[in-house]
């Protein structure tokens, strides 16, 4: 089954991105990404730009409400996601534990819901 690894980072970690290739966090990610791909469990994913670049949209009384900033007003912010193909939650938790983001931020593990997608698309999952 497929799991989404939702990666949350602190403002400090986001700020570290300006260091570019010298950043030790980026170095840890490079190794982690290679391990995930080599294990044959990587399906896809990407990092996200800084939370400051986020724009949140709501509809209220037929009117569009645009808010500058991310949806959740928390210290740790969504920084990226990966989709992994794994046999069990335990395997997913093991991969999450190895993720560099867990040192300072957090990784939320969520199973994908292929049956919901099937309901929407009408195509077999």
């Amino acid at each position, binding site marked *: *089954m497929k*799991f989404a690894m939702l990666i949350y980072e602190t403002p400090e970690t986001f700020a570290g991105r300006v260091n570019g290739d010298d950043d030790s966090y980026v170095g840890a990610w490079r190794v982690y990404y290679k391990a995930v791909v080599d294990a044959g469990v990587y399906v896809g994913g990407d990092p996200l730009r800084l939370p400051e670049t986020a724009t949140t949209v709501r509809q209220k009384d037929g009117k569009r409400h645009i808010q500058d900033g991310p949806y959740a007003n928390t210290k740790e912010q969504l920084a990226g996601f990966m989709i992994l193909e*794994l*046999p*069990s*939650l*335990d395997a*997913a*938790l093991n991969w999450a534990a190895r993720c560099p983001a867990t040192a300072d931020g957090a990784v939320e593990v969520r*199973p994908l*819901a*292929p*049956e919901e997608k*099937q*309901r929407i698309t009408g195509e*077999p*999952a």
Partner: protein
Amino acid sequence: MNPHNPEDAHQTIESVARESYGRLIAFLSARTRDVAGAEDALGEALIAALASWPRDGIPRNPAAWLLTAARRRLVDRARHERVRAESAPTLEIIAGDRPDVTTPDPIPDDRLKLLFVCAHPAIDPDMHTPLMLQTVLGLDAADIARAFLVSPATMGQRLVRAKMKIRHAGIVFEVPELHELPQRLEAVLNAIYAAYGSGWEDAAGADPRARGLADEAIWLARVLKEFLPDEPEVRGLLALMLHCEARRFARRGKDGEFIPLSDQDPELWITPMIAEAERELVAAARMGRAGRFQIEAAIQSVHAERARSGHTDWNAIAVFYEQLVQLSPALGARVGRAAAVAEVKGAESGLRLLDELDHDAVSAYQPYWAVRAHLLKQLHRDSEAADACDRAIGLAEDDAVRRFLLARRDR
């Protein structure tokens, strides 16, 4: 027993339900991950048995009959839900491996897997014990709610949520790998011990929280021992609970008054239970891997020794508490150590150990105040002792303990 006697049929249904419930739930849910679905299906199968066994006679293998009936219901339901993608594999799985109904014991025992699922780290730790009680023992949500002092509706919702998580989060029904086993086993043991109720007898007659699930907890520990005979902590836990349970009739007087361990009449202790506890503890010790439950059982074993020797070896108890604190410095262990040290070296020494404890942590911990009151009284610091005793009384959950402490305060 006459297989066509309706009364026998009812009795058989009851005993099969009791003995095979967890086994059947484990078998069904290990294949579908759907614990709630398995419970519903087995419930319907039991109702069907109530209708058909008194009429048609008791089947030769009642458990297999129930399993077949429950599976039929799961297959029916899966067909109804065919629109959902996930039901297709369920259907295959259930219809696929039919056990041979003619053999006497065709149902593989997956209860160990179920125990590990119930105490999975991804499940809220507060739900580990309720899940075990419901899925392995078949207790209903109302009974569990009563034991955990929450409303039946709340407990019901929490159980539904936990089973939903088991079904959809990707938790697999497997015994953890060897390197994970100690940590995962600890969660299972803690959950079983929580069912038993902790703190039966702290040195100064602290708060025994009788949750009324002692038999169930001991039963679960026996099941676990069957599966993992070489895990010393499993036997340690069983020994600990047996020791405490052996004193069941001694810890209350004729009028329901609380009797602290040191005042209990050893004649009232249940000797065979103590003997079994000792056997388990010896077997565990032989494996050479000490642990929290073995040490706690060893402390109870020293107390039990009083039945033979007539006195309590507080020195040995203090040593075991010291080991326990080194291993896991929980508040209970540290308060127990203070009480034991006070018996060996005097109240002053015990009090010093109590003073070391974090003030915030002990503020609502009843045994701390009970022991403190006891030691202050010995030192003739009467007004401080009375204050501490009031705290202990105010924090007591058990009315018998409350009355005991009130009487002691006024003495």
